[in-house]
């Protein structure tokens, strides 16, 4: 039985202060995600996005982590730097990157999701593209608050255009309901707060792994899509992270 040649999986972690227990649980059970996929997929590549933010009046300072590094990796992502590796075949690199995350501040999950969707996924004809988001806060929470929901239809369109299957473990809300209407998306309703400490990660990751293994991909051409929905490709780097250049 043949199968798709590659799965690109981007883990999106809310790295706000409350999420430390979740990150530890993710590390502990990551193999539960890998096991069902192995044997059916010849290549499983990992990506990682962690976003947290702090507000200073109208200004938001973001800290962004990817598998390619910290703040500098964001400019590499939007400069289309071919030298920078945003995916890795080695789960140990993901574990190390998870270790290096330093939860603090507030969340901005839609921005994190958007950065994940801008990742340089493998060819659409041979790659299952998956994003798995973990947060203990509602999608509407965080530094951008009510403005966030206006972006959800654009995020959904981008999910469709990029043929990305979305898994979210986060508290249910109107925004989550909207996101769940995206084709292929699965929202796991979890209790809010305390870093998803009540979540059975072993089962959850196992389910994601099985779903990745079972779903088939369709060929076709790469569609045009809107990059950097929040304008993050034009943000400026400062000492503590990234600053929205329009928010002065």
């Amino acid at each position: 039985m043949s199968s798709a040649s590659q799965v690109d999986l981007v883990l999106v972690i809310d790295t706000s202060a409350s999420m430390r227990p979740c990150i530890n649980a993710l590390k502990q059970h990551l193999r539960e995600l890998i096991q069902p996929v192995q044997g059916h997929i010849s290549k499983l590549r990992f990506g990682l996005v962690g976003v947290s933010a702090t507000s200073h009046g109208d200004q938001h300072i973001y800290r962004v982590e990817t598998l390619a590094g910290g703040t500098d990796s964001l400019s590499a992502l939007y400069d289309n730097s071919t030298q920078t590796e945003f995916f890795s075949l080695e789960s140990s690199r993901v574990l190390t990157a998870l270790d290096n995350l330093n939860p603090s501040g507030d969340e901005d999950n839609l921005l994190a999701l958007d950065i994940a969707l801008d990742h340089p996924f493998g060819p659409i004809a041979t790659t299952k593209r998956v994003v798995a988001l973990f947060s203990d806060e509602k999608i509407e929470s965080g530094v951008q608050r009510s403005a966030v929901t206006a972006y959800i239809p654009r995020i959904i369109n981008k999910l469709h255009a990029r043929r990305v299957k979305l898994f979210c473990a986060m508290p249910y809300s109107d925004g989550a309901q909207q996101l769940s209407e995206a084709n292929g998306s699965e929202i796991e309703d979890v209790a809010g707060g305390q870093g998803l400490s009540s979540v059975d990660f072993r089962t959850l990751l196992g389910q994601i792994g099985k779903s990745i293994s079972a779903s088939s991909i369709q060929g076709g051409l790469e569609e045009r899509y809107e990059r950097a929905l929040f304008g993050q490709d034009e943000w400026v780097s400062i000492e503590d992270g990234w600053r929205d250049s329009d928010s002065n």
Partner: protein
Amino acid sequence: MPEMLPVFERKILERGTPNVLLQFNASRKVLRLSIDEVGSPDKWFFIGDIHGDFFALHTLLREAEGRHPDCRVVFLGDLVDRGDMPFECLFLLLDWGLRRPGRLAWIAGNHDIAFSIGHQGVFRSQVHPAELLGDLNKRDFLNGFRQRLGQFFIRVASGLPRALLFPDGLLATHGGFPLVDLHPQGAAAETEDAFIEWLNSPACLKDFTWTRIHRKPKAIPDRYSSGSQYGFRDFEAFCALKPHWFPISRMVTGHEHPRDGFDLHPTYVVNPALTIRGLGFDEMRQGPGGLATNYTDTLYLAQGVRDALPALIKVAVSYEQLGMLHGIVAETPLVGSPTKPSSPSTGSNTKPVASAVPEIAASTPLGRVVNETKHISAISREDDRNLVVRGSHSTGIPAPLGKPQGSKSSY
């Protein structure tokens, strides 16, 4: 098998031949069946995705006929890919239909209609993985048989219906129905004929075959992808579109492969839905025994019930016969398979099924054919020159359905 192909070509594809497959090559592919055409609902049986699982197809066809000698069978599509006996399944299904004219409806699955012929006669598929492609595009040592078989399959698939509506409101389809973004066009139809024409438009036909059922309330149609999901509110909206012209109240589908063999979709309350899986192999866990490893202990067939979802019939699997078909000697353990009695004559299996659907007592149809004298014992496909159906006098695998006992498996 090569000698059977001309028979199928002549009897199924030639002009002027009465449609041996129900609604095959009809001018419309989404059709309402009349009360006269349907008759008693309980003679109608539904089979979900088969995907090259010869054993499952054979078992389920025999079960249907065993339960009702004048049965009608609706195969909900996806005959090929994934499993290792796609050609055998094609020939078995068509043979069954040819011997029972007008009693087999094969609804197109996305894997069935995905094939086309590209540059220099190379076969292509819109789906991936598409295991049949590898078979069709192998170097042909059989005087063009593969090329001809592929062309035949494409022609047959193009003539298949996409959905059938029964008089009591049951919609039988592979995937689903036209998604909500298409509904305004249907709502604008001013006559029944115009509405049916809309249902038969290319966009709607695609949705009947490719869309996927989901437990969520609503889904935003994804027109970048063929296999966009829908939710129960979307189905309710479709049912409410033109109920006087196309009165749908519930649905039976394939396309998904529920791990338990069926899915009653608990969120589909107002307009219920049932998805059944025909194949028995475990797509995720195959061992040295190939498809026979971790094979299910129960296959599911569904039988029509007036004004309700079809009833589920559980059919116990004989691992002995399954193993013989796949060339596994009895001593080879089928990893993960529950121990089964060697005699397939007792198959009572009372796994509980949700009470919303009437359950029909289980049986093991294979038990009725143990003593037939001549039947297929193995189909070997180790290499591309070895597409051979071997006759045998053993008592393992039952004869092709309807074949006179003692005859060879050819025309």
